[in-house]
């Protein structure tokens, strides 16, 4: 079982991942510096989520690992999201 195919990421792919992360970071800073109203926050959070997904999939290797890890991560994030939504049932309607 420890003999399952080990995926070794190449240096080149890691540099590409880093570059995309930096581009996204610069993008957030520029987007939030122009006035777009409530859309600013949404855009910033969306970009942050994309960055997080890239880190999870490539640096943290989820893309190449067994499915179970992706499943667990999705489940945990989904539960957390539901908890936030339910909490806001209180604050949005108070």
């Amino acid at each position: 079982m420890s003999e399952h195919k080990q995926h070794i990421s190449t240096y080149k792919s890691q540099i590409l991942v880093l570059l995309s992360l930096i581009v996204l970071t610069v993008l957030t800073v520029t987007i939030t510096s122009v006035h777009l109203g409530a859309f600013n926050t949404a855009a910033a959070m969306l970009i942050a989520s994309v960055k997080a997904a890239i880190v999870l999939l490539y640096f943290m290797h989820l893309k190449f690992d067994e499915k179970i890890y992706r499943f667990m991560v999705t489940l945990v994030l989904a539960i957390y999201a539901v908890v936030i939504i339910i909490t806001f049932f209180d604050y949005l309607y108070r």
Partner: protein
Amino acid sequence: MTGNSTTHREPSYLDYQGKYTGIRAWILSTDHKRIALLYMYSQIFFFLAGLVMGLFMKLELIAPGPQLMEAQTYNALFTVHGLTMIFLFIIPGLAASFGNFMIPIMIGAKDVAFPKLNLFSWYLFILGAVIILIGVFSGDGPPDTGWTFYAPYSLKTNTNVVLSVFGAFVLGFSSILTGLNFIVTIHQMRAPGMGFFRMPLFIWSLYGTAWIQLLATPVVGITFLMVVADRMLDIGFFDPAKGGDPVLYQHLFWIYSHPAVYIMILPAMGAITEIITTFSHRTVFGYKAIAMSSLAIAFVGYLVWGHHMFTSGMSETARLVFSFLTFLVAIPSAIKVFNWTATMYKGSISLEPPFWWAMAFIFIFMIGGLTGLVLGSVSTDIHVHDTMFVVAHFHYIVFGGAGIAFFAALHYWYPKMFGKMYNKKVANRALLMLFIGFNTLYLPMFFLGYMGMPRRYYDYLPQFANLNLLSTVGSWIMATALIIVIVNLLRAKKGTPEEMDDPWGGRTLEWKIQSPPSLENFEEIPVVEHEPYELTSK
């Protein structure tokens, strides 16, 4: 593969001589069975301490007016009683003791995945207990906030809240590591042939529990740290004067503490399932339904925390959502009860003590569950909120449910753990006495609460006197019964290997090895060829 035990027996885990001797052979052991006993002994110790505090509270309430103590002492007493019983007895509960002992054996492994981490968890548990204890006996006196540490009072009181809160944080960390260990063990260490759907249902319930421990505990951990920060650094997260929202504290607290109820009760349900199946001599009814209901309870239980806060000033929408979700949890719980009943139907039931304990569990748990519906719907909850009704419901679930299941499991696995059998007649009578005492103690509280007696007061109006007196008498009956139970277990007698290896005709893996188990549990890792609970000819 069954117990051809007399031929060759390894020294048991109790007698095994390793690197260390004396007490160090226990407190430095990484054997899951010894760690389980370390947990069990410490938990029973804390349980007895909490019991004594409870008795004093009942004594104070024997008649209206101050009896033994001042109001402040009573406040401290119910706080420390709650802290001890919840964080030191019932949250580690069946998982840390019986789970630790049984998980590797029931899935056919030699130990948990991380034995050292397992021991470390126990040390964290003791460390947390010691911190709480220091908090009780030092500084400006024991905390008086109730075990919930509700802000803003927990930020303002002069009593020693910081240490208790920090102790609870450490205990949470211990709980997380135990859960982590169990999940990895169940994923990685199952014997060949032991698929997920061949695992005993106790293991399924512990699997669900472990996930709650893992995902809910950190939320309360950070909340407790914020309370500490509020008190020490004056930040004001939950202080209305500084913009904080006390209701948010309640949200965060119950995001953990409601699932914590399932941390307590799920392993209890699992153990009861084992007992009922064994003594009905039938395969369990609806194996997959029970297994899945454990996960469903774990999941839905995560989303219902708001029903503790119906009167806290939440929005109307939130109250309705939480009330609806709360009723959803009743479904998987009921699935379990129906499956237990169906398992017993047409079974050839042997009326041994563990079975009676399981029956007591179901009866009491049903009362607790049904009164939970009263609290779960917004309109009725507002009437009985913060009254003795809540106290009664809570004790029916947590003590009558999880606590009684703890003793049921103890009676069930006692021969396996120690190779000894207690006096069954005494066990049955003590249970009957406990059952009577328990109901005499807590049933009146439902009526008291319904009539409007608030909880957490050391005094009450004269019209509540009779029922309170009855309740106090019940506490004496119950405490006596508990002492008999424990003495009876301590006086258990060694049996022959044939009698002890499988005294009940159990069909899970732990009954196929010697009692008490050897250090390695299995000489050879077993290969599982049967479906769970399949009846095999002996």
